[in-house]
């Protein structure tokens, strides 16, 4: 999709357009007016509609599928079952691990969770497909299921040795510590619940496949489709101009995509398939349910001597998802002795997936609740105990932080929140029936880095075009890349056109793990620098250039005009210069791959996550940091918790656009409020099925649940984290919100809730 930078907001003036300026989202008007076309809105000649049929048992085998009635229903073109759908080939995983050489069938015969896709109906209209899907009769041989982590049959699970982090002698130091706390913390299944449900339109032309699908990773998904259908990677085109929220759930090609693309191939017609909201709860994985035990041994003055951490997360019967529960535990506080281990437990669920800050989010709920508990036991202010145990270097990697403005975050947040006025005793602050509590917690997220690529063109009219197959799911990619190119070339952002969301553009890796801005600003900066060098080179060296006679070493480009550094000599627009030298464009591709990279390296870099750069590579450990200060009001009769005030100070390094960064931080904080108070997949244990699989029953916050949120940037440019000094933004905001709320609830009520969400019956 092409987005032109157009805006009338006075705040979006020249100052806002520079990198670091508060330019409003350039895709905003298209979204507000409805002009923005989302993937499944693609209208195609001959489009047919597919609807999924899901398993109604959690474990067993499909005995038979009776399709007679469905096939006879009006408008039905085909009924796909495991027996009738074309055979695909198993694709590699996201590390690019060569797959087992065996067929892949996106419709299941062996049922491992309720809601698994077992059949699909394709019809001329959506309504006909829905009606016929209800006529497909599936019979099963049911076997007992393991419903969740607390199921007696679940067992201890599988140890994941790669997650083990240990130093010193943590058990011995814990046993010797004068103050010891131990508690278990649980988080339930949570769901990304993006506003735009998952879906796609698939069209084959010969052995070329085009897929219009919301995607956080066009090249990765194109690779999976190519491998499934055994066609060259270049034959698959993914188009994803706008994404209505992903939160981690739209990075991979999923079984419903395989069903739709298979149907399109079998029918010889384009096919559209969109999940119902109910299906989005089982069609792919949300955040895994987790259980953590945190034990801390400390001195009487609150200095931590030992942390012993044990984590468990659920995964599916035949898939593997590890939610790294020791990720924050191992780096937040200085401790001489540490042990963290993790198991995963197989349950009858869809394989869990990535959801905003996978790992760090539940990890922070454990350690940031536990240190709060320690603070009360030793009688030290919860903020002070965090400062006393401040990690001056990465305690696990034993490396210096690239930048860690967490102390500054604590100071700025506490000052703005008025933390010094806090009355330390629980239940000591109230307003009528409302018990008031103040809580603090820290958060962090690693700086995930990767190589990137972009094309920058300077066109005949002096405008600049940026192309990349990376995406904008609302975080502001269109906007900050326009700002990057504008600043680098020396034109107003108004004159930059950014094209994203088409796999035919310059390749891009996954937009996940808060890496996109750092990767893409670097790539665009490099490409734009190269384009600028070409432009200046032409101006100096081309005999037709008005600058030729000047014999200058360099020229400056600003506001779309070229002149000499001293201001003497000619002053012409970019368009005039290109015209005078007879060029209709200048084009540069920039990539940040090492110079000796092979074509295979490049393919691997953009279609897998295997080449991501470790955040502890070299001399530094790179993380974003934050501190949340939160006030809750708990009605003492009703147990209802309302968040009444949030002040968060965050270190994401340099901000490319503070307005957009603040918006993402606030979005994370809002999601964290939902996680703390509302969100939970509720299981019918007899059926192994989530019953609140809709947005009336799976509650996410409304505007009325959200107070004013104040965010403060305490970051400084971090040259070790990205080319232009930024660290991660998107996931950071949610990390630490739930424990800050749980800590505030304890301060308000004296009740420690260790199981999310904190619903009223836990406090009544």
């Amino acid at each position: 999709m092409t987005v032109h930078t157009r805006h009338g907001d006075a705040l979006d003036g020249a100052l806002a357009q520079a990198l670091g300026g508060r330019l409003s989202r350039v895709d905003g008007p298209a979204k507000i007016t409805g002009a923005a076309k989302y993937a499944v809105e693609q209208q195609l000649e001959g489009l047919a509609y597919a609807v999924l049929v899901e398993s109604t048992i959690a474990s067993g085998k499909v005995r038979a599928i009776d399709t007679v009635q469905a096939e006879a229903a009006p408008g039905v073109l085909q009924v796909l079952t495991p027996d009738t759908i074309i055979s695909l080939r198993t694709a590699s995983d996201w590390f690019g691990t060569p797959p087992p050489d065996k067929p892949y069938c996106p419709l299941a015969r062996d049922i491992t969770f309720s809601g698994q896709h077992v059949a699909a109906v394709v019809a001329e209209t959506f309504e006909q497909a829905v009606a016929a899907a209800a006529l497909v009769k599936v019979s099963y041989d049911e076997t007992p299921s393991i419903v969740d982590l607390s199921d007696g049959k679940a067992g201890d699970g599988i140890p994941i040795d790669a997650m083990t982090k240990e130093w010193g002698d943590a058990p011995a130091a814990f046993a010797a510590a004068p103050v010891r706390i131990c508690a278990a913390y649980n988080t339930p299944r949570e769901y990304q619940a993006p506003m735009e449900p998952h879906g796609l339109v698939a069209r084959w032309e010969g052995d070329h496949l085009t897929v219009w699908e919301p995607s956080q990773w066009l090249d990765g998904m194109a690779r999976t489709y190519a491998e499934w259908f055994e066609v060259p990677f270049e034959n698959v085109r993914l188009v994803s101009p706008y994404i209505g929220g992903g939160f981690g759930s739209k990075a991979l090609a999923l079984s419903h995509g395989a069903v739709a693309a298979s149907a399109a191939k079998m029918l010889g017609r384009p096919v559209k398939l969109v999940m119902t909201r109910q299906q989005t709860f089982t069609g792919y994985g949300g955040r895994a349910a987790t259980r953590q035990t945190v034990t801390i041994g400390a001195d009487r003055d609150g200095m931590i001597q030992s942390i012993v951490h044990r984590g468990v997360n659920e995964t599916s019967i035949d898939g593997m998802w590890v939610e790294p529960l020791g990720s924050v535990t191992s780096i937040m506080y200085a401790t001489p002795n540490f042990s963290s281990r993790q198991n995963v437990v197989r349950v009858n669920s869809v394989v869990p997936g990535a959801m905003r800050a996978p790992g760090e989010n539940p990890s922070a709920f454990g350690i940031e609740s536990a240190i709060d508990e320690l603070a009360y036991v030793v009688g030290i202010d919860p903020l002070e105990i965090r400062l006393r145990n401040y990690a001056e270097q990465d305690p696990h990697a034993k490396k210096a932080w690239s930048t860690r403005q967490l102390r500054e975050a604590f100071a700025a947040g506490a000052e703005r929140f008025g933390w010094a006025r806090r009355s330390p005793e629980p239940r000591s602050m109230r307003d009528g029936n409302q018990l008031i509590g103040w809580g603090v917690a820290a958060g962090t997220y690693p700086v995930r880095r990767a190589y990137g690529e972009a094309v920058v063109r300077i066109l005949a009219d002096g405008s600049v075009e940026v192309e990349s197959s990376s995406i904008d799911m609302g975080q502001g990619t269109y906007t900050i890349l326009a700002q990057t190119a504008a600043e680098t070339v020396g034109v107003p952002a108004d004159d930059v056109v950014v094209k994203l969301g088409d796999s035919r553009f310059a390749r891009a890796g996954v937009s996940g793990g808060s890496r996109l801005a750092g990767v893409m600003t670097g790539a665009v900066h490099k490409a734009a620098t190269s384009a600028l060098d070409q432009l200046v080179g032409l101006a100096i060296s081309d005999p037709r250039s008005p600058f030729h006679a000047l014999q200058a070493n360099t020229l400056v480009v600003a506001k779309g005009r070229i002149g000499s550094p001293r201001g003497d000599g000619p002053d012409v627009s970019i368009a005039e210069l290109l015209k005078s030298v007879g060029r209709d464009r200048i084009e540069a591709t920039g990539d940040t791959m090492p110079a000796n990279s092979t074509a295979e390296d490049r393919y691997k870099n953009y279609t897998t996550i295997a080449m991501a750069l470790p955040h502890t590579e070299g001399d530094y450990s790179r993380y974003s940091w934050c501190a949340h200060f939160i006030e809750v009001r708990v009605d003492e009769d009703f147990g209802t918790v309302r968040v009444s005030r949030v002040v968060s100070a965050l270190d994401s390094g340099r901000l490319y656009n503070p307005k957009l960064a603040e918006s993402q931080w606030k979005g994370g904080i809002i999601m964290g409020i939902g996680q703390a108070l509302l969100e939970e997949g509720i299981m019918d244990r007899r059926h192994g099925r989530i019953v609140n699989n809709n947005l009336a029953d799976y509650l996410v916050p409304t505007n009325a649940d959200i107070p004013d949120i104040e965010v403060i940037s305490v970051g400084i440019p971090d040259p070790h984290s990205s080319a232009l000094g930024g660290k991660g933004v998107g996931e950071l905001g949610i990390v630490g919100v739930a424990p800050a709320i749980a800590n505030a609830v304890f301060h308000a009520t004296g009740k420690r809730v260790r199981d999310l969400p904190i619903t009223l019956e836990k406090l009544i």
Partner: protein
Amino acid sequence: MRDFSYLRATSTDAARQAAALPGAMLLAGGTTLIDLAKCGVAEPDTLVDITHLKGLDRIDVSERGATIGALAKMGHVADHADIKSRFPAISEALWQAASAQIRNMATIGGNLMQRTRCPYFRDPANFSACNKRVPGSGCSAIGGVTRGHAVLGTSDACIAMYPGDLATALVAFDATVHLGDRRILVDDFFLLPGTTPDREHAIEPGEVITAIEIPGSAAARRSTYLKIRDRQSYEFAAASAAVGIEFEADGRTIRDLRVALGGVATKPWRARAVEAALKGKVLDPETVRAASLLAVEGAVDHGANHYKIELAPRVVARAILKLGETA
């Protein structure tokens, strides 16, 4: 979606005739019906669209009471100045219901026909047993996820909670439903599940709700609707209370009291025991709290919904005390 016929009624009589056809359902705002059709619960053969009928959206308020046409929108009634001043609990129940978008579509008559949010009722593909949907098929909710289910008025056949707000306020103030010429108390319009949970309303095929009438009273004038819920808006009640109060001339002794509960029962639940215990008493917190416990007399929980038995009396007490403060 199944094929069905669509009829646009040109008069109330025509609507009655069409509604008497087997498999016919009336369509007004559609906010419940279309939702239930998408779930596969409602499968009408004929939809009788009454939204074009003239004169059924009037709101008349006088000293004697209010008459609200069946096609008046929830949002309009909530914002009506005379409803706000003479029946604050009605306005408050309405504006705390659903979302602004739904309130702008949904009608008052349709609101009375709102059905339960029981997840088992709403998912026929996965849960075949539901006595409300298929008489005699059993109840999937009993023994299942019950956090949102009723603790009052339940039976062995059904524990589905009535989720509405407006009707809770209506039963507190003795409102009647007009089914053309037939009048019936809202309290009697809603039926207990008993052995026939499929039958929810005392309405016969061919009857059309034309209006709701609420008698004016001092208690209605000093009234409130307190709704407690997990989420601050766009959420059904964990427990709610519609309360109206009238004091004697001393401003402390309770002359008249109306109490009804929402979010806890199989139908809008009038708490007459609380009313009787407090009439004639001087309003004081301890007396009110003690009497409010009578609101859940006979309550039966199914595990996860036990909290409603604790919560409901507290909501009643708070609402009564809040009205007392304004004395």
